[in-house]
């Protein structure tokens, strides 16, 4: 049972200009688990995801300390190939962000950039749509603009688009924050089916979702890691008073 972790984060601190978003966070995330990150606004959840696929590089005045590894790869080393890293670590943003193109073009963009042969693309797109449980709804209009889909469909398209890239890790930043309960349920079911093949990190400030959908959970507060453990344990017998306060809705 002692497998090396898929992702290891070691004493990670992160600053936006003067604001410290993460404060010496250390975490180990296992392969093929759904790992939940919860915490109130500004607790550093989204920042952590942005560091893990180096989207944080785009922030001009940010600074970080600490280490993070994906298998044996040093994520934060300056000479790490960011583009191939992002292909291994897919990120789905909280707002659905389909590109202003057709559904099909959205799906095949990543595989095409990765140099997959033309012939494989339609099959890849179909497989990804099926995995994201969107296939039946869009199979007859793959060449319509992606912007015409509903919010829930758009978000599942973004998930499908990330799956088509065939990453190893999927980061989800509040993927259901703008969605109705039915779309939310569909996405959660999808994640459950995907975890046999991927390692999934789910950020949410909806504690019920974390309780429903994840195997293990970490609680972040003002950039600090307060508690981490099996989700069932965190939600029934939290070790820290602040975790207890948060999940029972006394703040946040």
């Amino acid at each position: 049972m002692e497998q090396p972790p898929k992702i290891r984060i070691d004493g990670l601190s992160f600053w936006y200009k003067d604001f410290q978003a993460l404060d010496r966070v250390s975490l180990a995330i296992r392969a093929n688990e759904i790992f939940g990150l919860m915490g109130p606004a500004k607790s550093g959840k989204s920042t952590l995801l942005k560091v893990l696929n180096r989207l944080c590089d785009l922030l001009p005045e940010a600074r970080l300390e600490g280490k993070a590894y994906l298998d044996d790869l040093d994520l934060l080393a300056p000479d790490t190939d960011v583009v191939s890293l992002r292909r291994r670590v897919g990120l789905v943003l909280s707002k659905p962000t389909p590109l202003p193109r057709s559904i099909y073009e959205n799906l095949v963009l990543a595989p095409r950039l990765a140099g997959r042969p033309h012939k494989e693309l339609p099959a890849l797109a179909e497989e990804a749509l099926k995995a994201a449980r969107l296939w039946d709804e869009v199979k007859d209009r793959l060449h319509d603009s992606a912007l015409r889909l509903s919010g829930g469909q758009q978000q599942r398209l973004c998930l499908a688009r990330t799956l088509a890239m065939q990453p190893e890790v999927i980061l989800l930043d509040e993927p259901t924050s703008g969605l109705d309960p039915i779309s939310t349920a569909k996405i959660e079911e999808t994640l459950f089916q995907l975890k046999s093949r991927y390692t999934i990190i789910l950020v949410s400030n909806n504690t019920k979702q974390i309780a429903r959908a994840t195997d293990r959970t970490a609680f972040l507060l003002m950039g600090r890691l307060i508690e981490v453990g099996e989700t069932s344990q965190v939600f029934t017998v939290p070790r820290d008073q602040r975790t207890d306060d948060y999940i029972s809705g006394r703040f946040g």
Partner: protein
Amino acid sequence: MTSKGIERLLLVLALSSVGSLALITFFIFWEGLPLILGTGPGDFLFSTHWAPTKGRFGIGAMIVSSVVVTLGALVLGVPLGLACAIVLAEFAPKRLKQVLKPTLELLAGIPSVVYGFLGVLWLVPLIREHLGGPGLSLLAAAVILGIMILPTIISISIDSLSAVPDLYRDGSLALGATRWQTVQRVVLPAARSGIITAIILGMGRAVGETMAVIMVAGNALKLPTSLLDPVRTLTSNIALELGYASGRHREALFATGVVLFVIIMILNLTAAAVTRRR
């Protein structure tokens, strides 16, 4: 003054500027149309024989010159301007952009006679010595116009590139695209309508420019056969001859104006249509 009164005053001011456009339109067509119909539109537009004193009014050569000069300006100005806009909007540090964008827009404020003057002093001799011909040429006009349309193309393109939401860029980068691939496959297509508008407006500027073109194009009345030939454009023709024209000759110059007016209107309407279709 009451608020109602101010509203009325503003309405009158707004209507008067629209009204002057209507008057200009009416006047140009009133003066020019009879001659076009009298000569026959086919003869007027396609004949290259322009001899006002002998009653021959064919502006074919000038239409061709205007079109070729404009296309030449686009060949030069569009790649340069677009490249400049992409660098400034997507890759340059914010501070450099803040300095460079207004500087480039200053280019638009330089009077066209100054461009013409520089063209006569430097560009024309350069062409004459290195490429041959009289120097005063289609090529010289195209180069000068290519530079003159840069600010239009750059500043509208930058605005439309900057209007592309950052979410698209993040989404694309998160899918493993490099920054250049993101620009090429996501940002440029998303900004396409704005860029097309920029090109069309630049084209309008090139078609309508007069002073600089008169100074460097050579103004010969014939169909150009090479880039080094001197040419006369529609606008130059009006400006050069209106001073001494009278009667039918004067009408023919107004008719040239009608043709220009229609070209510019088509360009602007196309630009407006492209902008609306998002």
